[in-house]
C-alpha cells in the first residue's frame, strides 16, 4: 500500500511536470509566432523600403521612365506577392506611341521570370486604358481568367499621372486581395504619387535648364549683335567721315591737278625760251662790243652758277612725280568714295561663277607662284548685283590670299546657295591674321602690309560693297593656319531691283 501511494504521488508529479511543459511549449509557440511575425514584418518593411528607395533613385539617377518601370513593377510584385504584372508607358510627347509591356512574372514565385505575351491580358489592358484615362485613379476589376494555370480574379490598375498627363499604368493580376495586399496597395499608391512628383520636378528642372540654355544663347546672340552693331555704327561713321574727307580733298585736288598740268605746259615753254636764250648768250659772247660781251658773260655765269641744265631736267621730274602723287591721291579718294557708297550702283543679274573666274584670271599673275586654287563652285542662280563691284571684292580677297600664302598655298573657293541667297567662302592656308588685328581689318586705312604696299582700303571697300548688296561678310583666322572669308549675298537686294530676270 505504501508503494502504491508513492507511485500515485509520482504519477501526479509527472502529470504536473507534463502540464508545465505543455504550458512552456505554448508560451514558446507564442514567442515563436510573434518572432516570426516580427521577422515577416521586418522583411516586408525591407522590401517596402527598397521599393520607396528605388523610387527615390529615380529622382537622383534620372533614368528614363520606360527603363525604370520594370524595376518598380518587379519591386511591387515581390512586395505584394502578386504573381503577374504588366505596365504601359505613354511618353510626354503625345505624338509618340505608347509602350505596352509583355506580361511579367513575379521572380520570387517563378524561377524563370520570363516575360510572356498573353492575348487575354493584352485585351484586358486595352480595355482598362480608357477607363483609367477617364477616372485618373486606381481601378479594381473583377475578372475570370487563368494565367499559367493560376486562377486570376482581380486586376488592380494603378495610373502614373504627372502634370495632368497619364505617363503610365501599372497593372497587377492577382487572386483575391488579402488584407496585407490591400495595405501594400496603399504603399503603392503613395510610392507612385511620389514617383509622379519626382517626374514633375524632373520635368520642371529640364524645362529650367532648357530655358536657361535658351536665355544663354539669346544673351550670346544679343552680345554678338551688339558687337556687330557697334562695328557697323563705327563703319557708318567712318563712311560718313570718309565721304566728307573725300569731298573736301576732291575739290582742291581738282584744281591742283589742273594747275600742275598747266604748270607742266608752262615749264616746257619756259625751257624752250631759256634754251633759246642760252644760244643767244653764246653767240653774244663772241661779240666785239665789250659791253655786250660782258653782259653775255655775266648771263652765262648765272647759267653755270644756277646749274640750269639740272634745274630744267629736275623740274620735269618733279612735275612728273607730282602728277603721280596726285593720281595716287585721286585713286585713294575714289576708293574712299566707293567705300562710303558715293559711287553709282547699277545692279543686274550676276552669275557668280563667271565673276569668280574673271577675278581669278585678273589675279593670275599674283596667284601663279602661290600653289593651287580649288574651286567647289556649285551652279547657283544669278543674284541681283553690281558685277564690277563684286569682281573688285573677289579680286581683293584673292590678292590678299596670295600675299598671305607661300609656294605651298591652297586657295579654296566654295559656293553654295540656300533658299534666300548664295554663300561664298574663300579659304587660304596662308599666314593668318593676328586676333588683335581681326577686329580692325574692315576699317579704312588699316593694313599690316608695308607702307606703300597697301592702302588699307581694299577690305573696307569690299565691306562697303557687300553691305550695299544687303549681304554679310565675316572672317575667321588662325595665325599660321590660314584665313577664311565668308560672304553671303541675297538673290535680290532691296536697294535696287531693276534688271532682275532669271
Amino acid at each position, binding site marked *: 500500500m505504501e508503494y502504491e501511494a508513492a507511485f500515485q504521488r509520482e504519477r501526479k508529479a509527472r502529470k504536473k511536470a*507534463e502540464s508545465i511543459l*505543455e504550458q512552456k*511549449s*505554448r508560451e514558446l509557440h507564442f514567442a515563436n*509566432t510573434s518572432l516570426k511575425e516580427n521577422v515577416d514584418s521586418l522583411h516586408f518593411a525591407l522590401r517596402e523600403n527598397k521599393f520607396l528607395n528605388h523610387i527615390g533613385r529615380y529622382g537622383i539617377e534620372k533614368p528614363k521612365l520606360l527603363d525604370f518601370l520594370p524595376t518598380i513593377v518587379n519591386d511591387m510584385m515581390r512586395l505584394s506577392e502578386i504573381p503577374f504584372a504588366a505596365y504601359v508607358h505613354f511618353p510626354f510627347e503625345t505624338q509618340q506611341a505608347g509602350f505596352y509591356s509583355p506580361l511579367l512574372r513575379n521572380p520570387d514565385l517563378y524561377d524563370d521570370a520570363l516575360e510572356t505575351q498573353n492575348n487575354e491580358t493584352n485585351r484586358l489592358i486595352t480595355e482598362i486604358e480608357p477607363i483609367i484615362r477617364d477616372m485618373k485613379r486606381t481601378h479594381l476589376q473583377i475578372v475570370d481568367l487563368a494565367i499559367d494555370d493560376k486562377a486570376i480574379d482581380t486586376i488592380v490598375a494603378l495610373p502614373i499621372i504627372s502634370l495632368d498627363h497619364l505617363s503610365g499604368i501599372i497593372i497587377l493580376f492577382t487572386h483575391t486581395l488579402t488584407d496585407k495586399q490591400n495595405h501594400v496597395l496603399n504603399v503603392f499608391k503613395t510610392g507612385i504619387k511620389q514617383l509622379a512628383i519626382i517626374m514633375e520636378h524632373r520635368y520642371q528642372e529640364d524645362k529650367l535648364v532648357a530655358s536657361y540654355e535658351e536665355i544663354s544663347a539669346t544673351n550670346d546672340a544679343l552680345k554678338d549683335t551688339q558687337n556687330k552693331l557697334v562695328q557697323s555704327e563705327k563703319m557708318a561713321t567712318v563712311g560718313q567721315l570718309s565721304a566728307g574727307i573725300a569731298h573736301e580733298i576732291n575739290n582742291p585736288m581738282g584744281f591742283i591737278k589742273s594747275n600742275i598740268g598747266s604748270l607742266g605746259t608752262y615749264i616746257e615753254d619756259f625751257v624752250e625760251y631759256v634754251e633759246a636764250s642760252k644760244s643767244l648768250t653764246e653767240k653774244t659772247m663772241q661779240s666785239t662790243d665789250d659791253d655786250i660781251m660782258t653782259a653775255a658773260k655775266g648771263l652765262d655765269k648765272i647759267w653755270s652758277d644756277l646749274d640750269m641744265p639740272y634745274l630744267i631736267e629736275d623740274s620735269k621730274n618733279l612735275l612728273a612725280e607730282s602728277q603721280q602723287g596726285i593720281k595716287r591721291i585721286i585713286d585713294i579718294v575714289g576708293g574712299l568714295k566707293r567705300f562710303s557708297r558715293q559711287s553709282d550702283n547699277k545692279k543686274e543679274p550676276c552669275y557668280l561663277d563667271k565673276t569668280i573666274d574673271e577675278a581669278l584670271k585678273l589675279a593670275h599673275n599674283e596667284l601663279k607662284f602661290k600653289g593651287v586654287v580649288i574651286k567647289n563652285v556649285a551652279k547657283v542662280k544669278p543674284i541681283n548685283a553690281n558685277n564690277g563691284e563684286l569682281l573688285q571684292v573677289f579680286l581683293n580677297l584673292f590678292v590678299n590670299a596670295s600675299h598671305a600664302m607661300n609656294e605651298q598655298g591652297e586657295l579654296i573657293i566654295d559656293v553654295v546657295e540656300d533658299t534666300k541667297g548664295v554663300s561664298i567662302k574663300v579659304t587660304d592656308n596662308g599666314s593668318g591674321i593676328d586676333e588683335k588685328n581681326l577686329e580692325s581689318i574692315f576699317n579704312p586705312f588699316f593694313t599690316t602690309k608695308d607702307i606703300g604696299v597697301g592702302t588699307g582700303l581694299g577690305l573696307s571697300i569690299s565691306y562697303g560693297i557687300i553691305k550695299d548688296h544687303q549681304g554679310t561678310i565675316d572672317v575667321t583666322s588662325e595665325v599660321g593656319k590660314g584665313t577664311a572669308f565668308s560672304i553671303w549675298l541675297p538673290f535680290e537686294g532691296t536697294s535696287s531691283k531693276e534688271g532682275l530676270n532669271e
Partner: protein
Amino acid sequence: MKGAVFTNFQEMIEDQFGMECWEALLEKCDLPSGGMYTSADTYDDQEILSLVGALSEYSELPVPALVEAFGRYLYDGLANSLPPSMMNYPDLWSLLDAVDSVIHVEVNKLYPDALTPKIIVTEKHDNGVTLYYQSPRKMCLLAIGLVHKAAESFGTPVTIKHTCCMNEGADHCSMLIEQD
C-alpha cells in the same frame, strides 16, 4: 503517435484491468520505449497497435471494441489537456465543427510534428452531421469512441453509422452521426 494517447491508454488499463495487467502487456509486447510514456514525447504508432493486440488477448475482447472503448476513455483525458477556453462549446455539433479548424490547430501549435487526423463536418442534417475522417493510421473507431463520449458529455447520445471506411479500402471514412 502523441504520448498523451499512450499515457491515457495506460491509465485506462490501470483503472479497468489493474496495474498487473499493464505490466503483463509491457512484458509481452517488449516495446522499444519500454512503456516509459510521457505526454510530451511522440512514440511509434506500432506500439499502440501491439498494446491493443495484447490487451485483446489478455481480456479476450475483440480489438475494434477495445479501440472504441479507449476512444470513450480518451475523450476526458484529451478534453482536460486543452486550455479551458478551448473546450467552451454549447453542443456536440459546434465541437465537431471546431475539431479541425480550432482544436487540431491548437495541438499543432504545441506539437508541430503531430500528425492529427483530418476530421471535418462535410454535411449538416436536421438531426445530425456527416463526418469525414482521414488518417494514415485508419483509427476511425477511436474517433467514433471519442464522438460517443463527447455526445454523452453534452447529454445528447448519438447513433453513428459508418457509411464508408478506410479499413475496407476507401480513401477516407464517412460517418453519419445522428442524435437519438
